[in-house]
């Protein structure tokens, strides 16, 4: 693989994109999980599906869309979906979770319509659904780098506000954290990460890279910083091993990355169980 990596630009793109996503998806994922918003990532990825499918359909009909990278419409619809979720959460104050199935269904609904209009699944669409090693172009990589800079800046600048809001939202408001502005911004950032990740992991599996490494990390970490570090470590391991497996087996990287994440999670849960049993035997 090393030789191929040195010779083929598409492989270099995929590896760089994977390494970057392995950092930003779990980084943001920790805030999503502790705020119990894991399903929002799923809803937004399905909205991105509508954008991608729409772009692929329009590329057959309108010359402009034939030259436009579908990732842009995918990111655009995901960002639009994130703002709509926020709007719906305010409309249904007492049933905030309703926003998720509404937006998720809308995403799938529009996606199904565009896929049908485009006369079914093309190779391109399958690549977007489950990820692809060969499909990451230079433009995709630059978009991913741009989004990664935005995400890292966002987390770096608002770390203390995001932590406070995640741990105790009422206290955060009393302390003067501007949740009214931070929450929609956070949702837009989630949509951007989904847009960045879908080339490698695929639309249908993108939320798993934001949540499974985090699920493993919070089993081990005592501190929030520790949980962030472990989430990124598990995310990177899953991406690297998943990409290598996808390359040699010539299969979609989304599947291999997610299976690696699950494997890591199972290992962590087993280790914790065994460790707990040993400790109880030792009389702790």
């Amino acid at each position: 693989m090393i030789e191929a990596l040195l010779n083929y630009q598409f492989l270099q793109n995929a590896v760089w994109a994977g390494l970057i996503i392995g950092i930003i998806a779990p980084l943001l994922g920790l805030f999503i999980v502790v705020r119990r918003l894991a399903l929002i990532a799923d809803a937004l990825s399905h909205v991105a599906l509508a954008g991608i499918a729409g772009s692929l359909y329009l590329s057959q009909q309108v010359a402009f869309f034939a030259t436009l990278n579908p990732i842009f419409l995918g990111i655009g619809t995901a960002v639009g979906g994130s703002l709509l979720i926020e709007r719906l959460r305010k409309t249904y104050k007492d049933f905030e979770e309703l926003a998720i199935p509404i937006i998720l269904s809308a995403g799938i609904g529009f996606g199904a319509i565009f896929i049908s209009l485009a006369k079914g699944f093309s190779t391109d669409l399958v690549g977007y659904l489950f990820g692809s090693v060969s499909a990451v172009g230079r433009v995709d990589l630059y978009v991913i780098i741009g989004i990664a800079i935005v995400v890292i800046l966002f987390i770096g600048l608002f770390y203390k506000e995001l932590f406070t809001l995640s741990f105790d939202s009422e206290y955060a408001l009393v302390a003067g954290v501007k949740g009214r502005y931070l929450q929609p911004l956070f949702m837009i950032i989630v949509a951007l990460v989904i847009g960045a990740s879908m080339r490698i992991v695929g639309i249908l599996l993108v939320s798993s890279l934001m949540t499974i490494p985090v699920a493993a990390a919070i089993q081990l970490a005592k501190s929030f910083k520790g949980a962030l570090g472990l989430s990124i470590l598990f995310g990177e391991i899953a991406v690297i091993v998943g990409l290598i497996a996808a390359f040699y087996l010539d299969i979609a990287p989304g599947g291999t990355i997610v299976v690696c994440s699950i494997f890591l999670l199972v290992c962590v849960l087993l280790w914790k169980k065994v460790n707990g049993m040993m400790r109880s035997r030792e009389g702790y």
Partner: protein
Amino acid sequence: MARTLINIRNVSYRYHDVDVLKNIDLMVKEGEFWALIGPNGSGKSTLIKLLLGLLPVQKGEIEWFGEPIQQLKNRDQIGYVSQKSNAFNSSFPATVFEVVRSGLVSQKGLFSRFTKADEVKVHEALQLVQMDQFAGRSIGQLSGGQQQRAFIARALVSKPSILIMDEPTVGIDQQNVEKFYELLHRLNEQQGIAILLVTHEIDLVTSLASHVACLNQTMHFHGGQQQYEQLDDEQYSKWYGHPVRRVHQKEGAE
């Protein structure tokens, strides 16, 4: 003369066409220890939410440090421990240190980072509540009483003038409740921090408080401890909504 921290004037609040609060007046000054008591649904938590800006003032005026609440800037001067604090997600991956440090968010500007000086403040706050040895422990692993002390440290870390607490002893065993009130007494006496405490534990708290406010939609009584002690039990039960026999300080001491 002691500075006025809170001045509530003629405040009313309606929710779904129901009067939750009617014409409330209350003034809290530096160093005072107020117990806000009343039956369930009497509007105590609503009043606290209005005070903290979590609900908009519909009628009347609330002033903080002499300024209208709408212009409140010195949020670090207000320490808050909510009813829900001990109902947080116990699997949340955070140390006691990280949780207490988050209390400095009101003092730090946007985009600013925590410094070494902030770490010292966190340890000082933890020492005040005798929890410094737990700084590195996961917050979810502590007992209810210890968690509540950690939340008080979070409220104290910004060195506030007043601590506002909304039924902070819910879910804590009796032994720890007593220790908790001892801590509040110490903070009020030794640190001079004003306290506004919402509670159901009438006898325990009113023996500690310097002032008592009795709320049931309207403010039935607010004043000093001695005046409160002289209130008639029958009259007291009438506004409370069910028979109440208070254990007076002298009786309790016998």
